[in-house]
């Protein structure tokens, strides 16, 4: 049954109108890389042509994706037993087979290698459905968002031809082996070593990797190991290289699956390599170039979490709304209580914004050229993972004790969601990435100006002073979002103005921070965290406004609701941003960083909570 459906899917894919034209457009990579939208925000510039109008897909593509969505949705609602997967900590083979037949193991693999060849947007759309079961979503993501991504983006044609077809069909499952016992994000902790054999034909791979998703299922591994490389000044150096390792190369063993809090059905275990012979043609990229490969893989895999979380929250809203509208308390329905209503609003807003961000980013990535959207993708990941966690928690709150019971699926959602904040780069680390990447970009451009000011160039300083003065007198910021020729619909005028104002002051804040801290801002993590929070909010506001504007303009169903959600979010985010920017000013009363650091230091010095017990006495 599932097999026939899968065949059907592929047949649909093949018979789609204009099968040649679209991939050609999507893969046209000719233009020079463009500085992306988010980085420009750090300069206080809003490149509205990047985000307005909200990216669309053509009718043909829409029809095509809708044809995919139907069967996949049906499969997930009828044949996936999430409760059983969670209990047995294993995805049953027939479910896996169904997924393979649907072609979900090769969503982004080009069609010539037997995949579905989906664009980022379409991939995000399917991610909405696959996320209904956390274990399956993680298994799929570990396979194609990171596991085989290395071959896809940096592999040679031979490697692609050799591995991708069987990976696309799901005959082989891929895993991404980077983390080692030392620590996750420190490349210096990688101890796995690959030594070139004497005849120079293969590498001998030795070492262990931990917490490898799909480690027990996979037959193809992307492995990162240290190799000796002669660098340009002739010295031997240890550098990281990426390899494609087949299980059949020998010497590959894996530990028993880890018992986890959530996503229990996904397979996570240790993988050991012992004298595994890897042919030299299985190096991904070049020898010693593994670090870049790893970074690119990690950076490219994140954007889909936005739509996945949104899909899950939408489902959750349905389920909890059903409950809230039927259960009665004090002769009133739960849905009539203000505190319950607030929770639904929060969920709807978060889901809406998440979705907007995810599809905006996916759309930007689908554009021709080499759009560098890693910062945007990281922002989507941070926002959506935290939003998902809040929403699931709120949903559980609506359900009360019922949500806590194992008989209902809610507690599983809660457990599954927790991993989102941790994997693919913890949110803390991603915040640093977002803020520092932007700071680096802005710093490069602003360096000269700041130096002039520091040197005491009167002209520049005076200009700076006048600009500050104008800010204080109440400057009108106009990026052309609103107004007669604006791109934002008039009903979103207020939100648009708020966004403009935030963007302008964010630019001045960033400049101020760079003047103050220079390159030592790397060590000011609390500052960077606020910068990241602001920029995430700005991007979220942009995405929501852009999407809502489009909805009104083309008259989508319930667009007034979208406007409402957008205005709610933008107003809240505006004040949050203002508060954060106030904290970022020097000597701000709101800024408690020094106290926070001191308190943490005292605790960490003693490695314990050091306050006396409230019942203690001294006499």
């Amino acid at each position, binding site marked *: 049954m599932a097999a026939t459906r899968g065949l059907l899917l592929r047949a649909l894919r093949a018979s789609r109108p204009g099968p040649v034209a679209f991939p050609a457009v999507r893969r046209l990579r000719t233009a020079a890389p463009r500085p992306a939208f988010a980085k420009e925000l750090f300069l206080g510039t809003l490149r509205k042509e990047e985000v307005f109008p909200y990216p669309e897909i053509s009718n043909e593509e829409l029809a095509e994706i809708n044809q995919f969505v139907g069967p996949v949705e049906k499969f997930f609602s009828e044949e996936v037993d999430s409760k059983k997967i969670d209990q047995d900590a294993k995805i049953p083979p027939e479910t896996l087979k169904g997924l393979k037949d649907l072609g979900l193991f090769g969503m982004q693999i080009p069609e010539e290698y037997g995949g579905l060849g989906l664009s980022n947007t379409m991939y995000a759309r399917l991610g909405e459905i696959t996320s209904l079961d956390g274990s399956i979503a993680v298994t799929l993501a570990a396979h194609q968002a990171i596991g085989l991504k290395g071959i896809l983006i940096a592999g040679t044609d031979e490697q692609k031809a050799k591995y991708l077809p069987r990976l696309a069909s799901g005959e082989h499952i891929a895993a991404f082996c980077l983390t080692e016992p030392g620590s996750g994000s420190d*490349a210096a902790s990688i101890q796995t070593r690959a030594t070139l054999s004497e005849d120079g034909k293969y590498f001998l791979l030795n070492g262990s990797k931990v917490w490898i998703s799909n480690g027990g299922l996979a037959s193809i591994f992307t492995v990162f190991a240290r190799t000796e490389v002669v660098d340009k000044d002739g010295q031997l150096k240890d550098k990281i290289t990426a390899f494609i390792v087949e299980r059949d190369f020998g010497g590959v063993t894996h530990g028993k699956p880890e018992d986890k809090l959530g996503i229990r059905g996904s397979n996570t275990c240790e993988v050991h390599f012992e004298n595994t012979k890897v042919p030299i043609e299985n190096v991904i990229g070049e020898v010693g170039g593994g670090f870049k490969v790893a970074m690119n893989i990690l950076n490219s895999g994140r954007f889909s979490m936005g739509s996945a979380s949104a899909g899950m929250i939408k489902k959750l809203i349905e389920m909890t709304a059903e409950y809230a509208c039927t259960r009665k308390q004090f002769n009133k329905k739960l849905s009539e209580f203000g505190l319950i209503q607030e929770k639904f609003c929060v969920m709807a807003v978060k889901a809406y914004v998440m979705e907007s961000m995810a599809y905006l980013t996916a759309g930007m990535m689908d554009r021709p050229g080499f759009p560098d959207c890693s910062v945007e993708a990281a922002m989507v990941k941070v926002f959506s993972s935290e939003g998902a966690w809040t929403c699931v928690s709120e949903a559980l709150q609506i359900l009360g004790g019922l949500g806590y019971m194992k008989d209902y699926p809610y507690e599983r959602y809660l457990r599954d969601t927790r991993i989102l904040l941790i994997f693919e780069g913890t949110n803390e*680390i991603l915040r640093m990435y977002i803020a520092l990447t932007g700071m680096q970009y802005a710093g490069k451009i602003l360096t000269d100006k700041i130096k002039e000011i520091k040197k005491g160039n009167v002209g520049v300083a005076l200009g700076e002073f006048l600009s500050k003065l104008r800010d204080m007198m109440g400057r009108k910021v106009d990026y052309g979002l609103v107004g007669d020729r604006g791109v934002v619909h008039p009903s979103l005028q207020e939100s648009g103005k708020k966004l403009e104002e935030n963007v302008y002051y964010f630019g001045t804040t960033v400049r101020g921070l760079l003047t103050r801290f*220079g*390159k030592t801002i790397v060590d000011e993590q609390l500052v960077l965290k606020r910068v990241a929070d602001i920029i995430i909010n700005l991007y979220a506001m942009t995405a929501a406004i852009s999407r809502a504007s489009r909805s009104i303009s083309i008259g989508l169903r319930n667009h007034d609701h979208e406007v409402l959600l957008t205005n709610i979010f933008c107003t809240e985010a505006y004040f949050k941003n203002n508060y954060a920017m106030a904290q970022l000013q020097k000597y701000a009363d709101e800024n408690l960083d020094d106290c926070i650091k001191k308190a943490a230091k005292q605790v960490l010095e003693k490695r314990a909570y050091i306050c006396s017990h409230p019942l203690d006495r*001294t006499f």
Partner: protein
Amino acid sequence: MRLHWAHALSRRLWGGWGPSQVARSMSRHSSRPAGDPASGAPARRDPPRDAQDNDRGPAAFAAALETLERIPGRRVGRLELVAAALAAMPALGVAREREAYHRLLRLLPRGPWVPRGPIQRLLAPFPQQQECGLQILEQMERYGVVPDAETRFLLLGVFGPRSRPVRKCQRMLYWLPRLRHVDPHPLPSVLPPPGLAAACLGLRRIANDPDARITVYQRPVPDEGDNEGSVQPYIVGAQSPEQQELLARHGPARPVFVEGPFSLWLRSTQLWYYVLRGDPLPPHLREDPPDPERSLYYPLHLDLDLERGPWDDDDFDVDEVEEGPVFALCMAGAGDRHTLGKWIAGLQEANPVLGRTPVVFRLQDGDPPAGATGDPPTPSLGEVPPPPAVLELPDLPRGYGHSTRGGGNKGSMAPGE
């Protein structure tokens, strides 16, 4: 005038000949049959440790006071008795017990020393008596004993409201609890006897890093006791993983130095320690050069030509004298090169690089004699035989009523005061 009453009493009670024997018997042999005049002398030669049972210490003090309380004629000689008891308290190990002070206060008569009416209160009534109360409180303060409501109640009964002792007690009640925990690095109330245990404690105190490992490189022989007859001194060292890293980074090319002894006081015990240190490395070797391929997720360094602004540079501008890193610490029962060499040999197990590094001994002249790790002058350590406590007036600061009385016949002071 001095203690005639107490002498008479004590001879009967403790069988001693003089004040010094009284106290010794008070401390050791209160249960000895009375009227045995020779009992005090041989007891002095007993090993001090053997006396740690119940015929010495708090029990003896309690027994003595109990007997005193039963004796009639309570008006005479109380002040002297209290002063003598105060002097004997540290030796008996009750100086930190509040209840002991309460017992002393209960020896004082209730009522007769209370001034009658406001006029008498104005005229500094009963100076000697109040001084005696103040001494009790002062000794409590010295030993960190916080008075409680009962102390105040007893003082009120003896001296009356708003008398000097009561007011001092109130001040102590205010301050002592507040000051009780001001020390961020408190010592245990009872310090271990000098030797291995005290050395470990001292090292733990210097190497204030929870990761630091204290290793005993050599156990003392004999296991305990004084160092005079010891065959081999103890060697104990501390080293943290961070220090091991520093030592590895220091490399075998540059010499390291054993320096010391430096002294460390644990209350009134003096300990000596030695450090293994090196000269500071040249700046370019101190840290690995920044590796752009280090962090997989975010840049660890910004490639900017912007320094921190002068207004945001919170570091003080001081001329720093650079000191080399300290790689390890050691305390040993003996300070000779032979012993310290054994420590270095032991360190090599965890730090292989030390085997190839030249080690220079820079020991100062003022070496403590072998095994001088702390000749404890205080009884609070409780190991060395406390000098005989004397039921005699303690040596009070000049100007205090009692101190000048009794001519030059001052007994030996209680130790540690």
